């Protein structure tokens, strides 16, 4: 294309391009360090002692001592059993994830495959409420659960996942591109029942979408603080973010007894499952980010 230009112009162009490339790489490397540094410091700080003055880049030797602290009697007296909190988080996140992806797919299937009078209204309604934050109705939910004595229960943390507008939206978009109605009709011809068709024929087709959504739903539930903090005050029911919030609150109210080594070790363990998931599946996660949004 640039044949018309002289050799000199092209050389100059090449120079400019090289410089721009150089700047781009420098900025990218800086941002890479900025993004990774917090995690590196967290790991280093988990090997350090109770008081941690200054910044350190080389690990110290207290890694196992800090792990020991998390399983100590002292910890248990203040924050409950760590393994119990960890299992609570796993349970809540896993159950929410399964309920969320399964029922969102079912809801999307109902709208995608069947023709009925309320189809349009239901679809529009779900899209309308998609952007409404759950926090807006939290106070009503909370008072309702208090009066039903359901605050220290996992029911309000898991069951509502069945109705997840954002996951529904993702699923129905995926179905539009990947689930031809002919497949459903063929199943009908073969005498397959409607519910069975969904479970045996449709779900396997949706597997890629289910997997991507499952990762996102699990991660967001694992990290969720607001509702669990609002509802759970029984030490045996607390999830990991709620306990972390307690550890932090203890430091605020009593800085003298703060143990930075323990706190950083707790955070390392708190983010570990998600880091592992991310390292294994980062391709699917990064690829899934732009799928639910507008196409340019």
């Amino acid at each position, binding site marked *: *294309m640039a044949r018309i230009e002289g050799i000199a112009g092209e050389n100059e162009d090449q120079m400019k391009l090289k410089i721009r490339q150089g700047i781009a790489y420098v900025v990218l490397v800086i941002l890479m360090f900025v*993004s990774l540094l917090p995690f590196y410091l967290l790991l280093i700080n988990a090997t350090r002692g109770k008081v941690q003055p200054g910044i350190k880049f080389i690990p110290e030797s207290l890694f196992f001592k800090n792990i020991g602290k998390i399983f100590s009697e002292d910890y248990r007296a203040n924050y409950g059993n760590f393994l119990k909190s960890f299992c609570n988080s796993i349970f809540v996140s896993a159950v929410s994830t399964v309920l969320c992806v399964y029922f969102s797919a079912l809801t999307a299937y109902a709208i995608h495959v069947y*023709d009925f009078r309320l189809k349009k209204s239901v679809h529009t309604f779900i899209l309308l409420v998609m*952007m409404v934050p759950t926090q807006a109705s939290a106070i009503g939910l909370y*008072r309702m659960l208090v009066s039903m004595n359901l605050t220290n229960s996992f029911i*309000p943390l898991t069951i509502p996942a069945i109705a997840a507008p954002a996951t529904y939206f993702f699923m129905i978009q995926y179905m539009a591109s990947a689930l031809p109605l002919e497949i459903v009709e063929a199943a009908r011809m073969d005498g397959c029942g409607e519910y069975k068709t969904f479970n045996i024929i449709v779900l396997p087709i949706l597997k890629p979408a289910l997997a991507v959504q499952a990762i996102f739903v699990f991660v967001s539930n694992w990290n969720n603080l607001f509702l669990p903090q*609002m509802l759970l005050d029984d030490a045996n029911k607390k999830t990991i973010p709620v306990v972390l919030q307690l550890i*932090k609150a203890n430091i605020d109210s009593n800085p003298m007894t703060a143990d930075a080594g323990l706190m950083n070790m707790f955070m390392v363990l708190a983010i570990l499952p998600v880091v592992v998931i991310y390292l294994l599946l980062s391709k699917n996660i990064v690829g899934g980010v732009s799928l639910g949004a507008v196409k340019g």
Partner: protein
Amino acid sequence: MRKTISYAKWGYIFLIPFVVIYTIFALIPLLETFGFSFLDYTVSQGAVSSIRGGGGDTIVNNGFCGLSNYIKVMKSDGIFNISFRSTVVLWLVGFIPQIVVSLLLASWFTDIRLKLKAQGFFKTVMYMPNVIMASALSVLFFSLFTKSGAIDDLLGGPDLLKNEWGARGVVGFINFLMWYGNTTILLMAAMMGIDTSLYEAAQIDGANPSQVFWQITMPLIKPILAYVLVTSMIGGLQMYDVPYLIGGTQGNPNGVLKTLVSQIQLGKNSSVGAVSALSIIVFIVSAILGFITLKIMDDQSIKTRYGKKKKK
């Protein structure tokens, strides 16, 4: 084709779980919140339970009080007014650098002449803070910036978290760190959708990179920019974890880290009526923003064909 009609009932049957659960856990609570917002409704903590509800609480419900909750929270020193301002400032402090950096990165990544290598690696690294527990990230930054923390030591002890703009800056930086990768990926998707022949034509015409960016890229990604802006606003309205874990219950220093949602958490066992009014205002604002988002998506014909009655 009459057969299709007999299947309609299955559509309704498969919708039952969603409708029932949404009604119980979202619609009814929302209506209740709406109801509370017109009540003179407070709870006083009993001596028995110091943290939360239960046996010792006294619920004081003096019945309907009209709009007085709304008037109270919207006053210049009302909880909505104050925390709305704090929330907007915190959101802006994070969003402005985020959108600038993301635009720059996305345009570099999609530049056909730059041909940057290791894009997958950079994207993976940049998105990582988004999946990490916001609470953990915040507590880590708190310990780095707090008095005699690592950064505080490094800077010679300004104790940034005691300074209003210092604390806002730290919260904004965490939000930036969590979201710039996400925004970059969204903007990239939009930029990759632009017809490359436009760029080639510009190149032939001798346009420089900044001209290409402002004259071609920007106008063509407007819809997704609007989408990013509005969804980020909705996310900003819900901001809670980061400012709460940096500034505590009181949103220190001077309450500048007290967000709308932290007021809801704070008032759940005390000023129920006032906090409900605040919730309803948050609901209305986010509903408007959500409606705008939907319009943007609609213009992009993304709302799919389910809006119309499908012909078979």
